[in-house]
C-alpha cells in the first residue's frame, strides 16, 4: 500500500479540503482494507480500485456526518496555500489569480460530496467520463447529468449563474 499513499492523500485532500481530514480519510480506507486484505490483492489494477474505494468512503462519511449534529467541519483556511495576488478586471482574470483560486476551492467545498468528488475526478484530476464510469461502476448517463449539475452549481457559487436557471439555485453558506 505504501506506494499508493501519497496520491491517495492528495486525492483525499481534494475531496475534504482539510489536511487532517484527508489523513483520516486515507487511514479509514486502510483500516477497511486491512480488515479485508483479499479485496485489494485480487484486483489487477489497484489504482482504479483504490479511487473507487476512496470515493465511496468519502461519500459515505459525508452522508453520515450530514446526519449527525457533530459532523460539520468548516473548511480550513487555505491561506497557507495561496499568495493573494489581487484580482483582475474580468472574471476570468480574477479567477486565474491565486486569490480567486481560493474562491474556487471554497465553492467546491460547499458542494455536496457527490458533485464535489466528480468535479475533482473529472475537472481537476482529468479523468474522462467513460473512465470514471468504469472506475466508479456508475452509468455514464448518471455521471454526465451529475457533472452537468455540479458545474452549474459551482458556477453559481462563483457568481456566474444565469437568471434562467433559478430553479436550482444553491445558496452559499457562510
Amino acid at each position: 500500500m505504501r506506494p499508493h499513499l501519497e496520491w491517495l492523500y492528495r486525492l483525499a485532500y481534494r475531496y475534504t479540503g482539510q489536511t487532517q481530514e484527508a489523513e483520516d480519510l486515507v487511514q479509514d480506507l486502510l483500516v477497511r482494507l486491512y480488515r479485508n486484505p483479499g479485496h485489494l490483492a485480487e484486483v489487477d489494477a489497484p489504482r482504479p480500485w483504490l479511487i473507487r474505494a476512496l470515493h465511496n468512503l468519502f461519500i459515505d462519511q459525508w452522508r453520515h456526518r450530514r446526519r449527525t449534529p457533530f459532523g460539520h467541519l468548516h473548511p480550513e483556511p487555505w491561506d497557507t496555500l495561496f499568495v493573494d495576488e489581487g484580482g483582475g478586471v474580468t472574471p476570468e482574470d480574477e479567477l486565474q489569480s491565486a486569490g480567486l483560486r481560493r474562491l474556487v476551492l471554497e465553492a467546491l467545498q460547499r458542494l455536496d460530496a457527490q458533485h464535489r468528488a466528480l468535479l475533482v475526478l473529472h475537472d481537476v484530476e482529468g479523468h474522462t467520463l467513460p473512465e470514471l464510469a468504469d472506475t466508479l461502476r456508475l452509468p455514464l448517463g448518471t455521471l454526465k447529468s451529475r457533472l452537468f449539475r455540479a458545474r452549474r452549481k459551482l458556477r453559481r457559487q462563483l457568481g456566474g449563474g444565469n437568471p434562467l436557471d433559478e430553479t436550482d439555485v444553491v445558496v452559499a453558506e457562510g
Partner: protein
Amino acid sequence: MDCRTVNQRLDSGGPVEPQADVREHLAHCAACRKAWDVARATAASLKTLPVPPVPAGFAERVLARTYAQAERMGSRRRRMREWRFALAATFLLGLGAGLGFAWNAGSQPDGYRTLADGTLVLAPGNRTVVRIALDADHAIGDVDFTIDLPAGMELEGHPGERQVAWRGELKQGRNVLGLPLIARTGASGELLTELRHDAKDSVFKVNVIAATGPAWWVRLRQWVA
C-alpha cells in the same frame, strides 16, 4: 440561440471555445458572456488547484495508526463475540435454561437417559429459573424427585436447604421442571436432579456457577465452547 441553450451547452460540454452560434449570442448577452467567462476561468483554476505537500511522516503515521486501529477493532470484535454469547446466555437463562433430559423407561437398564448436559452460568443474587425438560414415553406415577444444590445456592422458598425432595408424577411426553435458583457470588458446583421410581433411579448433573467479572467470561467461554 437562447440563454438556456447556451447555458446547457456550457455545463454539459465544458468551457471549450464557443462555437459560432454561441459566440453570436455572447456578443449581445452580457449575462451569458459572464457565465461563460466564469466557467472558463473556473475550469482553468480547477486544473491548477494547489495541494499541500504530503505531511512529514504521513505514511509511517497512517500505517502505524491503521495497524493499531485494526488491532483494537479485532479486540472489539472478539469482545462483541463474547457479548453475543453473554446475551444469548442471559436470554436463555431469563427464559429458563433448556436442559433436555429424557425419561425413557425400558430403553436403558436404569430407565433414564440424558439428552443434554452442560454448564450453566448464573447472575449472582438474581432469581433464575432453570428448566429441565423430562421426556417420558408414558405416564409414570409415584416418582420421587430430589434436588441437591451446591453450596451457596438455594431454591426460592427453601432458604438454607441444600436438598429439596418431593413426590410427584410424570405425564406422557415432555415434562418441564422449573427450579427457581438463587446463587451467591462465586458459588459453583453440581446441581443434581434425582428421579426414583420403582427402585430404579437416575441422576442428572448440571454444572452451575454464579460469577461476574473475569470468572464469568472465562467460564462462559468454556460453556459456549
